[in-house]
């Protein structure tokens, strides 16, 4: 019993000395400093370091010069075309490349050499990473947008046609999404229509163009 009392006594005194006099203003001040330091560190790491950790960088199998090919063919459609059933062929298969490259031989540049040896020779399709790859739950009709509504590729895909190199593919370690879906800006802020490719971006445009963001099944499967 006496033990209890002494304990409670000590506790009481401790309590009293913390009952707001000069000494613990310092304590408080120190607390404030600690607060600010921690705040800044965490905020910065959350904004600058976090994206580095979140995304893994993957190099494409070899470089591809879009501008050169667009100059040669004149447009995107000659490689990224609609099939006769209205579906979109996405990234052309080896056969498509060889349509032209049967006569114009490969092997001048380092990348062409890789292409020729690793893939054409082995009749192996090139495992490209697709920057605009959407998840399995998404249905997207290129025909509806490009053919019927006459949209251009740039609106969603950006000026990739003028690029001469392929940037590394950044994959979100948690979701497996390409970084281009969320956008380069970690806050998800976009300047151009092609900076983000999330559902809200589709809905935004649909609302503007059709007056309605669309029904679930229009874009989901």
């Amino acid at each position: 019993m006496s033990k209890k009392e002494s304990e409670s006594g000590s506790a009481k005194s401790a309590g009293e000395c913390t009952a707001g006099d000069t000494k613990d203003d310092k304590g408080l001040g120190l607390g404030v400093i600690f607060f600010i330091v921690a705040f800044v560190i965490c905020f910065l790491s959350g904004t600058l370091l976090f994206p580095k950790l979140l995304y893994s960088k993957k190099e494409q199998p070899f470089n591809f010069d879009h501008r050169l090919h667009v100059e040669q063919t004149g447009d995107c459609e000659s490689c990224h075309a609609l099939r006769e059933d209205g579906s979109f062929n996405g990234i052309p298969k080896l056969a498509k490349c060889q349509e032209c490259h049967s006569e114009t031989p490969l092997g001048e540049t380092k990348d062409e050499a890789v292409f020729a040896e690793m893939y054409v020779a082995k009749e192996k399709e090139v495992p490209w990473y697709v920057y605009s790859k959407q998840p399995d739950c998404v249905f997207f009709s290129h025909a509806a947008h490009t053919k019927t509504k006459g949209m251009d590729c740039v609106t969603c895909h950006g000026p990739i046609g003028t690029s001469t190199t392929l940037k590394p593919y950044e994959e979100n370690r948690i979701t497996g999404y390409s970084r281009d879906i969320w956008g380069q800006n970690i806050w998800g802020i976009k300047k151009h229509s092609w900076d983000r490719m999330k559902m809200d971006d589709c809905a935004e445009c649909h609302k503007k163009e059709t007056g309605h963001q669309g029904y679930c099944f229009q874009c989901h499967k």
Partner: protein
Amino acid sequence: MDSALIPEGANRCSFPKFAIGIAIVGAVVLWGVYAMGLIWWKGLNQTNMNDYYGFALWIWADLAVIAVGGGAFFTGLLKYIFKVDGLKNIINFAVIIGFICYSSALLILAIDIGQPLRGWFIFWHANVHSMLTEVAFCLSCYFAVLTIEFIPNILENRQANKVSFFHHLAHNMHGVMPVFAATGAFLSFFHQGSLGGVAGVMYGRPFAVREGLLIWPWTFFLFTWSAAAFGPCFTLLVTKITETVTGKKLVKDNVVHLLAKISGWMIVTYIIAKIIDTLYWATVTAPSLGFNISHFYSNNGFYGYWLLVTEIIICGVVPGLILIMKSTRENPTLRLVAMILGVIGVCLNRWVMVLQIMAIPVLSFDTWALYFPSWQEIATTVLPIAYGIILIALAYRYLPVFPQEKELNAVKLATETE
């Protein structure tokens, strides 16, 4: 050993004794947590639910705890808005019980959904037509309110209160409490109601569907009313249990009588409304959809008319009458009986409005679906009870929950110190 934390002048059992008690209940909590882990890890196949029983034990538990937790908002409403001042001696406890009930409800919901990590979609992609959306919003808001209402009581802890900041905070919070009480009452009105709406709007389920007012089916109002009616019953019941366990009188009889009386009148008015609703549904609504009431209560192993009788007469009319009549109300035994019946009644009502709906075949060529929960479901449903006991124990031991405790037990204390 923890006496520094115990409210001054209050007499509590020794710490080891307390610790052992907590440990025992804690074991139950661990069991529940284990089951919860299983469910989150392996998925809902750990339950005995199926495509006929999408809603089962958990949703019932949810509705039940929220119903009995209704004591908090209603007592708060009476105390702070209608200035029924006598209730200040029980309001703290009412709030704690409410806090326990609502935190439990949220926990259960988090287990019940198939994709917990997407749970926030209910807010982000909210569908305003869905009663469940209304539930989710009001539920979480009201839980916040309850937390705020609980905080001052926590800050009144002997040690916390020594910090001047906390001391003043607690004091000022008490001052603005009416605002929160009002908000709480408002929110509760809606989520208690929309929980009723959940069943009432299912127009594909003739047993559940009800006509109503604007977008709100009658069940909306019945649920709110019943929560307000039976909630206080539960508050009083738990108080009674706490008194029995601690062997102390904690709340003065006049307070108890007052709340019991109010509860009584609420129950009576509710049960009248409920009877009218049932009659109309049984004679007009259901038949218009091709169903005799007998269809809902026969040809199966469990759901019979006995449910109707038990819920409305035995656990509705009876407690109502006991509590409105002075003589019976002030008889402790009868009052206890009434409170127990009342709590059973409201829980039974929620059971019927969740599980019986699922059990009844609607297609003429379909069959009754009966269900018994898996141990994982039971464990996770017992979990909140255990957790509640612990929280009450802690609160009672370390917080000045019952303002009248000292006064009521003064003599006892005096004799002890001698």
